[in-house]
């Protein structure tokens, strides 16, 4: 496939940037009481599911109660982590001024400390989306998810590592900001001792709640309650892993080089976010349970627009893609997930690139062509500061 970024002229890229900026402004101006009511109702539903789930598990001795309790608690954790937590922490509700919806203060029902998540996800992943060597979500430090990662025998275990990550996903996420794969090579963003302190405190609090206090309070049913809570955590882990891995890994998604993205314009930034993301199709309940990460493209274009809006703007985004001749990667869960599993299995082995490989290093000619348009434009504010994004329009 031709690199789409090479087929768009500078003017087209600028126009793309302006159109998407205008879309964002329009939606932001429209935010109001219905958006606030939506997230509040969702939070109420999550708390009710959590309370009833825990309550039902106190009757664990009756299998239907145990099942119902585990289902309710799984849904509670999924909603809390995805549609509520991930979205609130993106600042999607900061405009309300409600301190319980403040992105910098929110804490969520999972092992990962919220402040470390905000760093590794909001900043690193969303700024450097799909840039090899910068976006640590490519592989999470434990998997080979890109051809650019040289093969070595340890990658034969790729599928096993993926399974382990999926089962223990909440701990994988909790350890993400530690940058274990860089141990010995470079510092993490903060001293690792400090990060470990935060991780320990959060893991301890969650473990105490799910695996000590609630089981003990239930008396003789303790093992059943413990198993129930573990199952709920497992359900959330597997679901979150699946949805998240469908975001940037299905066939057709593009990876980028650090050099190419050093001084992106607004239009180029939007384009990278679009090409690096993939959507999932489904009904309204599916979208809510996936935290609207089913609209990964819209989310990466506009991370701070409340996620309930992604569905309505996806029609417009798709139309914009058609007009500019850009791909819009979307498919049902089983198709996209199947494509991701095949990738994991394929990358466990050494061998030729996949037929639909689209990462930039395979198209050096395209790179040169892109260099030309860049020097022609005089409007970009060059500060020569490496990977700093000069994508902000001035004034």
């Amino acid at each position, binding site marked *: 496939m031709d690199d789409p970024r090479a087929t768009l002229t500078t003017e087209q890229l600028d126009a793309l940037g302006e159109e998407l900026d205008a879309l964002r402004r329009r939606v932001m101006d429209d935010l109001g009481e219905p958006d606030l009511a939506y997230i509040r109702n969702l939070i109420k539903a999550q708390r009710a599911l*959590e309370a009833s789930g825990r309550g039902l598990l106190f009757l664990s001795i009756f299998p239907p109660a145990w099942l119902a309790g585990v289902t309710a608690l799984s849904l509670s954790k999924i909603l809390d982590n995805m549609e509520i937590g991930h979205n609130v922490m993106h600042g999607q509700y900061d405009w*309300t001024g*409600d301190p319980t919806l403040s992105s910098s203060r929110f804490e969520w029902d999972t092992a990962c400390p919220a402040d470390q998540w905000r760093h590794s996800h909001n*900043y690193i992943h969303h*700024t450097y989306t799909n840039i090899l060597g910068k976006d640590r979500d490519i592989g999470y430090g434990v998997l080979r998810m890109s051809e650019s990662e040289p093969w070595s025998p340890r990658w034969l275990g790729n599928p096993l590592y993926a399974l382990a990550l999926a089962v223990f996903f909440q701990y994988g996420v909790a350890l993400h900001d530690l940058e274990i794969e860089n141990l010995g090579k470079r510092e993490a963003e903060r001293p690792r001792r400090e990060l470990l302190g935060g991780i320990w405190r959060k893991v301890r*609090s969650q473990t105490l709640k799910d695996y000590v*206090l609630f089981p003990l309070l239930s008396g003789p049913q303790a093992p059943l309650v413990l198993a129930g809570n573990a199952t709920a955590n497992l359900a959330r882990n597997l679901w979150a892993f699946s949805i998240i891995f469908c975001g940037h890994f299905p066939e057709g998604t593009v990876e980028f080089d650090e050099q190419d993205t050093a001084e992106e314009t607004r239009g180029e930034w939007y384009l990278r976010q679009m090409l690096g993301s993939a959507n999932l199709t489904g009904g309204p309940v599916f979208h809510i349970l996936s935290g609207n990460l089913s609209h990964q493209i819209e989310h990466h274009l506009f991370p701070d627009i409340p996620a309930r809006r992604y569905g309505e703007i996806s029609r417009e985004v798709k139309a914009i893609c058609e007009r500019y001749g850009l791909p819009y990667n979307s498919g049902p869960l089983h198709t996209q997930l199947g494509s991701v599993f095949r990738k994991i299995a394929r990358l466990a082995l050494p061998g030729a690139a996949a037929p639909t490989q689209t990462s930039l290093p395979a198209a050096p000619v395209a790179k040169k062509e892109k260099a030309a348009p860049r020097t022609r434009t005089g409007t970009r504010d060059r500060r020569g500061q490496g990977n700093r994004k000069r994508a*902000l329009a001035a004034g």
Partner: protein
Amino acid sequence: MTAGRRSATFGKQVFTEMSNRVAGSGLVRALTAPHGPERFLELVAPSFALDEVRAEVVRVQRPVPGSVTLHLRTNHNWRGHRAGQFVNVTIEIDGRRHVRCYSPACSEHGPERELELTVRAHPHGLVSRHLNDHARPGMVLGLSRPAGEFVLPHPRPDHVLLISGGSGITPVLAMLRTLTDEGHDGRITFVHYTQRVREHPYRELLERLAGRLPDLGVRVIGTRDGAGRGSAHLTRRQLRGFDRDYLEAETYVCGPPALIAAARSIWERAGAEQRLHRESFLPATVPSGDATGRISFTCSGIETTSSGLSLLEQAERAGLSPAYGCRMGICRTCTTRKLAGRVRDVRGGEVSGEEPQDIQLCVSVPAGDVELEL
């Protein structure tokens, strides 16, 4: 209150106190981590709060056009106020919270957990106009703890002079009603400047209060009424007319800056400024378009003049190192509390309100003087 009623109220208080203790206990916090017990109890008791003060509007009066009086009932976290203090009121309008400062106009000795606020609609005021148009019983507001040093002291001064202009009437009216409830027998003079005597919200109340104390004089001056024209400015002659020995009174003045300035100049010239207590009520200001102004970094004690760059860059140039990430308004790492002043968002040009709120430093430029918690 009958003995039965008293013990029921006492029982209710004990129950509430104990519930609060249990709800806030370590075990319950651990079981409800990370969100905390409040977020669950809110499901069953919407105005429950462990230590936030919330109030429900129980009655709304609109005595004159352009003014609304709200009677509020607070939750159990309200501990009363001192006459003259103000509270920060939080209200949600179309999904967004806004905070404004109002002084309760009621006596310290009013019914427990009841408050009275009077809000005049300002031409550009978002919250004041919203309250005037839409306030209704059932509306829930957030309240801060009362604050402020403009208060009636203990023991009460014998000779008191209360002067107010416009919406400045509320704190001094609270003082007057408090003194009236206490049966104060010293001399009190209450002077209020308004535009038209017939159009101010407390006309009837002041007439009723006038006869309740042995030595209370109430004067309301309409600065736009025929006879009142020319009395717009506070003068020594006027004051002597209100109270011959006005310089010996403990004087409390609250109103627009011009009134305060006039009072200050008279008292200072007479060398009696230690008996003058002031609170200034500023009207809502309209945003200006310029990027100049002073930036105060309150935690570092640094002040600088704005250069028009983003607040993140200006903080860095001032020698600070605020946390940052993408520097383009996406990741929210640079979110910092703005304590006062207006900022403009460089992405869309929106100008913020003046009240305290969180802002993203990398996409905010000052629009006037700004105070940051940095």
